[in-house]
């Protein structure tokens, strides 16, 4: 039956060679850093830890091994250009760079110093260490991205910002309100939980600018982007009764919008579940220091401080600010001292005073807290990043920091298990006066459009292949006809002096609405919408232009 088979012994090596071959399989049980859900997966890594293959970890409590597009592209994410240890652009040994950094930090006036870490790829231990490092330098300017949200809200309501809910609650809900969230785009692994809820008989209502094209909602409450219709939402409060409201909180959320969600929650019998874009957001809230009373500047205020020259030094940990906004990187170049500690080079790495190389997220030893409240182990063995921080601060060992983390999370001696939701949330009632929500959207002109960023895991990462995905905009059929677009045309999105060309997709949208899943080079804005103009981009083939 087998033996020499003349037809099939010729091995087509091209196919095999093209594959991402790995010589020795070292399997790491890892977590995807795309969003706060924290999907489990395996990475198979070769000895030099350069080639990585992804596998699905089917017994993962969070996601059953399933991953969204970001997760399936993790090998590309981890294949970006590695950071170097350098001082003033000159590559040095890590010890020297760390020593230099420590000295420079010591020489700074603490009011002129700032620490920023968006909790995307940092462990609980690193958060604890970073916060304690800032206090070692007596610096109160430390931001994990969300500080400003705590102001102006009652303390009793802060748990809604700090913690999420286990997905079992989503599956068991009888009514779910998707508040300007498209689960398939914003948090893909949430979608299947809502689908399961629907199978269990749940009703899904979406409050949004456009009907979800996948039809996940049974009912859509369309909000007109022209005036945000906040009054209308407020008046129709009964729809939120006995529901689970699912929304999102990002550094770009308009604080008034958060107030609106909290007020709806407070004045109805509902539960509010806010998802966040960064994996360890919950860890940051629980371990990043006292967000509520003392706080300190938030990310944008620190940037403003840099702009005004008040803040002269910045320690940036595992944060790609260009991923938040390319604008910010222009301001950062005004700093006198920029220390960047991360695994991959960013747009700022070339101008940073000191760059410190830490290990990739999957190599880190440590824990994170996902949006459900599960404490998950990152799966790696390296303490490099943590040791760099500690060597400038208290000098604790991993175990010491880990114990401190466990203590502060209230974990006691329980073994960390992904199957247990260790950080539970206690629903507290709070009072909130009806907010006068005024969300003025910078309107371009009467004929202008409204741009809605549909944030998603790719939105916050820049570099490598990540940007190529989702680089088109979605427009309405009306806009397509108005602009006289042909299939292979591009549109140009314009805001003042800035413009950018993009491909387009047509969807059932209100006439003036444009959706984008990746950032455009327009001015960053807080809130859901901004005003832009759109026109048909100049056609590439000049020869046919005169015929049109």
């Amino acid at each position, binding site marked *: 039956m087998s033996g020499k088979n003349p037809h099939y012994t010729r091995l087509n090596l091209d196919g095999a060679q093209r594959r991402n071959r790995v010589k020795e399989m070292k399997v790491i049980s890892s977590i995807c850093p795309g969003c706060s859900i924290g999907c489990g997966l395996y990475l198979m890594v070769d000895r030099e830890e350069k080639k990585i293959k992804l596998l699905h970890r089917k017994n993962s409590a969070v996601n059953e091994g399933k991953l969204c597009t970001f997760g399936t592209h993790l090998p590309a994410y981890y294949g970006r250009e590695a950071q170097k240890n350098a001082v003033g652009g000159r590559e040095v040994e890590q010890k020297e760079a760390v020593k230099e950094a420590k000295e420079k930090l010591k020489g700074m006036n603490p009011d002129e110093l700032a620490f920023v870490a968006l909790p995307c790829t940092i462990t609980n231990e690193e958060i604890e260490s970073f916060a304690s490092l800032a206090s070692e330098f007596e610096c109160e300017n430390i931001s994990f991205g969300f500080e400003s949200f705590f102001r102006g809200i009652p303390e009793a309501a802060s748990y809604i910002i700090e913690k999420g809910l286990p997905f079992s609650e989503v599956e068991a809900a009888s009514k779910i309100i998707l508040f300007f969230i498209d689960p398939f785009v914003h948090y893909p692994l949430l979608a299947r939980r809502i689908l399961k809820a629907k199978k269990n008989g749940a009703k899904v209502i979406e409050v949004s600018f456009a009907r979800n094209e996948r039809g996940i909602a049974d009912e859509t409450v369309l909000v007109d982007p022209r005036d945000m219709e906040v009054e209308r939402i407020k008046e129709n409060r009964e729809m939120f009764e006995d529901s689970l409201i699912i929304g999102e909180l990002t550094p770009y959320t308009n604080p008034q919008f958060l107030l609106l969600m909290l007020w709806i929650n407070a004045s109805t019998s509902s539960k509010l579940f806010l998802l966040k874009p960064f994996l360890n957001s919950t860890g940051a809230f629980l371990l990043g220091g006292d967000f509520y009373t003392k706080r300190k500047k938030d990310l944008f205020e620190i940037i403003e401080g840099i702009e005004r020259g008040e803040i002269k030094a910045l320690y940036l940990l595992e944060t790609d600010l260009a991923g938040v906004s390319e604008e910010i990187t222009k301001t950062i170049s005004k700093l006198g001292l920029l220390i960047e500690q991360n695994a991959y080079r960013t747009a700022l790495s070339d101008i940073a005073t000191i760059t410190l190389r830490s290990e990739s997220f999957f190599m880190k030893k440590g824990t994170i807290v996902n949006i459900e409240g599960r404490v998950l182990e990152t799966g790696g063995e390296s303490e490099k990043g943590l040791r760099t921080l500690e060597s400038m601060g208290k000098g604790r060992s991993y175990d010491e920091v880990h114990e401190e983390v466990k203590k502060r999370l209230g974990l006691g001696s329980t073994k960390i298990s992904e199957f247990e939701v260790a950080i539970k949330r206690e629903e507290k009632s709070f009072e909130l006066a009806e907010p006068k929500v005024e969300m003025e959207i910078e309107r371009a002109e009467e004929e202008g459009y409204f741009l809605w960023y549909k944030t998603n895991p790719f939105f916050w990462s820049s570099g490598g292949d990540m940007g190529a995905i989702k680089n088109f905009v979605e427009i309405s*059929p*009306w806009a397509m*006809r108005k602009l006289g677009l042909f299939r292979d045309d591009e549109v140009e999105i314009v805001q003042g002096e800035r413009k950018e060309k993009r491909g387009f997709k*047509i969807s*059932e949208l209100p*006439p003036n609405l444009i959706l984008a899943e990746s950032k455009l080079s327009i001015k960053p804005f807080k809130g859901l919408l901004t005003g832009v103009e759109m026109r048909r981009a100049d056609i590439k083939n000049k020869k046919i232009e005169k015929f049109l």
Partner: protein
Amino acid sequence: MGKRLAENKWEPKILAFCCNWCSYAGADAAGMERRQVPPTIRVIRVMCSGRIDPAFVLMALLEGADAVLVTGCHIGDCHYVNANNKTRNRYEFLKEFVDELGLEPERLWLRWISASEGFLFAEMVREVTEKVKEIGPSPLRREWKK
């Protein structure tokens, strides 16, 4: 930008893949012989019916074609010897696919038409147009409102 037809009137859009040597020549002949061919047909010329990747047919259906015609030389007469045999095979798969997907079988056709069979071409288009008018527009069509 092109005229749009009144809302209620729907004219079938039928896409025919014709091979250069036989069926396209046959379509040409139909024209030269002044045969009546409904204007519902749009022709794409390929060098051989064997060039028709099933993906083209699938894409045509997704683009909203109400019917897709795969045409070529008679079996045994293929200019490239036997490529039309492969066409026939692929058609069998496509037929099963279209049926399983839940589209009407009248949306996919396979006809061999030689260069001298202009009348067959015209007849085919008439037949297909009639059948398609009966079954209505393709459910894969995307009509944008407003």
